């Protein structure tokens, strides 16, 4: 187990190393970062001052080492526009993004798990086909368009819900549905396939042979085991939703991390964009590492293979 954890952690560190190298290289290959940092039309001497101030006059490898050192110590640079450390901004917005992501996760559970369950228990029935249609639309209807249409219907035409901003639960409904929509479809598919797999297994056959009623077999014996991969996906999804809800947060003026990234793009606040992207990568690599270790802890076969 110890060796497994060490190897996985090493992989995670390598992953982050490559990610940081990619971000670093892309920024320098696509132009002079100084021009991104300075106001448009800045004088040459100002450019030079910024270059020295940010250490951009040094050779690339040294710049990279400095970048890695900063990231490792939690210093992601200072936002140009806010004149604040990027990590401080990130963690300031995190609770808002978490609130939205939790609500969206709840929505995706409420739609995805029951529908996936029914689809699996009644394979090829009307229910299953309805589930397939939901799954298909989950992929094909972009969440941000769903959000716009909901604003049109529920805010503009019916006047039931506020269009944007943060406030009570009524502000949360539409962004949560728009964000959770896609993830509901993916949970539905996974619940269905995971349930189907479990229902085919030997111990379920035994439970049926014992004469247990069908609903006990499904609810107690099968569902509990089928839930493990589903909850794993939900965990990963939560972290993705926190960091990737850019358009939904823009549409609903939700002051989260996605909107921070969007502001960074528009104000050409390049340390902010770089920092948020790096922070998102760290969080996602972290959650994946955690899940890998938890799985290995639960299931010895995983840590023994390879």
């Amino acid at each position, binding site marked *: 187990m110890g060796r497994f954890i060490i190897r996985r952690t090493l*992989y995670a560190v*390598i*992953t*982050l*190393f*490559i*990610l940081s190298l*990619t*971000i670093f290289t*892309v*920024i320098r290959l*696509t*132009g002079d970062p100084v021009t991104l940092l300075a106001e448009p039309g800045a004088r040459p001497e100002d450019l030079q001052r910024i270059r020295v101030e940010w250490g951009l006059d040094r050779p690339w490898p040294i710049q990279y080492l400095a970048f890695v050192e900063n990231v490792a110590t939690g210093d992601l640079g200072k936002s140009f526009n806010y004149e604040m450390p990027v990590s401080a901004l990130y963690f300031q917005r995190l609770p808002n993004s978490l609130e939205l992501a939790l609500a969206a996760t709840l929505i995706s559970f409420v739609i995805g798990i029951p529908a996936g369950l029914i689809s699996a228990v009644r394979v090829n029935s009307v229910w299953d086909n309805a589930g397939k249609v939901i799954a*298909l*639309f989950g*992929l*094909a*209807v*972009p969440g*941000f*368009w769903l959000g*716009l*249409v909901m*604003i*049109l219907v529920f805010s*503009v*035409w019916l006047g039931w819900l506020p*269009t944007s901003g943060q406030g009570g639960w009524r502000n949360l409904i539409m962004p949560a549905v728009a964000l959770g929509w896609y993830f509901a479809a993916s949970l539905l598919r996974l619940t269905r*396939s995971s349930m189907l797999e479990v229902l085919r297994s030997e111990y379920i056959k035994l439970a049926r042979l014992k004469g247990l009623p069908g609903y006990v077999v499904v609810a107690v014996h099968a569902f509990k085991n089928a839930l493990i991969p589903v909850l794993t996906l939900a965990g990963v999804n939560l972290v*993705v939703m926190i*960091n*990737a809800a*850019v*358009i939904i947060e*823009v*549409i609903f003026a939700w002051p989260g991390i996605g909107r921070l*990234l*969007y502001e960074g*793009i*528009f104000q050409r606040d*390049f340390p902010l*964009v*770089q920092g948020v*992207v790096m922070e*998102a*990568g760290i969080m*996602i*690599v972290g959650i*994946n590492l955690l899940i890998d270790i938890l799985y290995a802890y639960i299931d010895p076969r995983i840590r023994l293979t390879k």
Partner: protein
Amino acid sequence: MTFVTERSRTVIAAAPPAATGRVKRGLRLAREVPLVPLAILVPFVLIALFANFVAPYDPTEPIAGAKIFEPPVWMAGGSAHALLGTDFQARDVLSRLIFGARVSLIVGVTGTIVAGSIGTTLGILSGYLGGWIDQAIMRVTDAWLALPGLVFAIFLATMVGPSMWNIVIILGAVYWTRYARVIRGEVLSLREREFVKLAEIAGASRIRVILRHILPNVLNSAMVLASLTIGVVIIAEASLSFLGVGVPPPQPAWGSMLSDGRSMLMVGDWWLTVFPGLCIMLVVLATQLLGDWLRVRLDPQLRNL
């Protein structure tokens, strides 16, 4: 000698079935064409190809004499010169949708081809060569997967600057990872198959083995993955254009049309929001259905993807 003939027979058996079943298969295919996805996709492709002839107006210029935000023709205030209404510059929404189809389909298809080429190449190299090359490629794949595709694409687009072909390259560079993973897995098992072993024993170079024996056997999976990637790429392009880092104005793209229409949503000018979104939905829906159909046809093992 018997041993050799035995082996070569196995090779023949393992090779994909030749022309004998082709006619039969053709007939079966004809019977079971994916009617719904084709019924949606064919018109969109034709419209995109012949946009210059189909579109009533120049999509980047205002209609002479038209007002801004005219509703569609069937509503009060609409007029016959702009069937689906006009936008904030009095441009024809229908013409912009038609030219937008061209952008979406070009980016969707070429972006998928770029992603598929990168991913398939890396997947084959990783799976066939193994060793440190495999390790290196897989770690890069992990790093790429560590970022949500859209966030990565937004980052790249911000840095590179907007243009349609930049978006194609960016989306290709972001969405290759799934191919690399799946294809690598397939190559790992292909590598152990007898026809590959035999080719190696017969002295075929690595490049020859890859091109003649490995590549043709992973193309089915690559095709299935491609059909499923197109929709993702189209939505990603629309998202980038919506955020203003995609296809730059005045070139019409469905994503930037949604963004333009957003300001008028509050007044209830629904046509600016509903039509571009419906187009995205229909095209993605059709490619997904086509992908499902292909998956069942070509590669039942991928059913769980």
